[in-house]
């Protein structure tokens, strides 16, 4: 456990540039947009929009972090792989480091979003704040789950890429991995998820989350500022879908670990 924790600390240190860059970029963009927003009298609205976009885009945060971490590691594979720990521990250390930095980044952008949103008073009176917070919490959980799902998908294709680099150049390996990704993810996954079997496998265990915001329209003009109106509807989720995605993620994770342990070469 101590070895793994120290490995995770190393991963955090390795990922420090990837951690700092988006935060710095966020503050710079917020500062610039605040300057222009302030000139037109929409300071809060502008920051709200920027912070919301910065928060939502974090669905790709773990993929971005993995790209940085794994490509840095590719230059020193002998250092990373000459280790008595099995691959799942090596990768979990990276994943935990990535989720930790994502959590910090998410808190920064999310808090900015909520503070800016609160300052604008553009939430309609009929939408209570507790409701917005519930929605935010639900959204955050789904954002994290989707981010993990995408990161593991990326991890799997990175391992395929490493397999190809045993015999091909970097560019050819990347092109082939990308092609495989398009075929498997675009075609095969699309075909599976649109089948009746998929519906049978996933559409069970329905949970009614009650009335929840299903659409929001934003009216924005220079005289009146921003005005948000929302419509609510019943939201039903299926446990089967979550289980299906979880199983798929676990399979891809362990397949990646198997490839790293047994097939990837230095």
């Amino acid at each position, binding site marked *: 456990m101590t070895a793994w924790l*120290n490995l995770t600390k*190393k991963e955090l*240190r390795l990922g420090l540039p990837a951690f700092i860059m988006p935060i710095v970029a966020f503050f710079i963009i917020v500062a610039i947009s605040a300057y222009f927003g302030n000139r037109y009298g929409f300071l809060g609205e502008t920051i709200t929009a920027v912070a919301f976009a910065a928060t939502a885009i974090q669905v790709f945060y773990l993929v971005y972090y993995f790209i940085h971490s794994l490509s840095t590691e590719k*230059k020193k594979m*002998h250092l990373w792989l000459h280790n008595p720990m099995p691959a799942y521990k090596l990768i979990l250390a990276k994943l935990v480091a990535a989720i930790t930095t994502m959590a910090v980044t998410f808190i920064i952008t999310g808090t900015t979003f909520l503070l800016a949103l609160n300052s604008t008073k553009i939430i309609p009176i009929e939408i209570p704040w507790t409701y917005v917070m519930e929605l935010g919490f639900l959204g955050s959980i789904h954002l994290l789950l989707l981010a993990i799902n995408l990161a593991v998908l990326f991890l799997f294709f990175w391992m395929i890429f490493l397999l190809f680099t045993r015999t091909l150049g970097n560019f050819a390996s990347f092109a082939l991995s990308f092609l495989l990704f398009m075929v498997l993810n675009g075609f095969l996954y699309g075909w599976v998820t649109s089948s009746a079997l998929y519906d049978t496998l996933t559409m069970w265990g329905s949970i009614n989350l009650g009335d929840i915001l299903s659409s929001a329209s934003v009216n924005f003009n220079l005289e009146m500022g921003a005005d948000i109106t929302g419509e609510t509807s019943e939201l039903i989720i299926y446990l089967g879908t979550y289980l299906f995605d979880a199983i798929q993620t676990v399979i891809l994770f362990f397949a990646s670990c198997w490839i790293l342990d*047994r097939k990837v070469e*230095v």
Partner: protein
Amino acid sequence: MIKLNRVTKMYMRNRALYDVDLELTKGKIIGIVGPNGSGKSTILKIIAGLTHPSKGNVTVNEVKVDRLIANQVSYLSELDEYYGFYNVGQTIDFFATQFQDFNKEKAEEIRKFMKLDRDSKLKHLSKGNRGRLKIVLTLSREVPVILMDEPLSGLDPMVRDSIVKGLISFIDLENQIILITTHEIKEIEMILDEVIAIKDGDIIGHHNVDDLRSEKNMGIVEWMTEIYR
């Protein structure tokens, strides 16, 4: 201790090793020599479990080799890559956390012997000092097998000398086997017990160095000149 049984390694159509049989026992320093691309590094990577044979099998202490053999093998790569954000001391400390067999006192002893400053940033180290650090990290592990891929490559004579002296001083020959690939044969000839010559993935000679001297009246360089002719 180390056994390669009919090991072949192919990279596409290129043959890095072909049908190699090798059995090595502990208590020896063994040099692997040969021209560039002959398969020297591939042998070490296969024993370290970092490359996989296309055919045949490899065991270390009767254990089939895979990546997890790292708990019995200390491998020094020919590559000069580190985690640049660490300094010398932090690198040693990190390695100590990753390998249960890492002897920190020994690491400090070797570091002082190699005149390396604990606080020096790795990105600011000279090539020679990076070579010395690799020796510190590799020899501080108390494992049965030590593999060193070109530890003297590109280093000046003073650094090479300190590394060779470090090898003599800090290995435990009663319990360890050391495999070294090198082009700098003259520098390490005096410490080698055996020498293995490779050409195009084939082992073309395997000799006890003392026997070579007494029976054939040859040093390693003369022997190599003869067999590679």
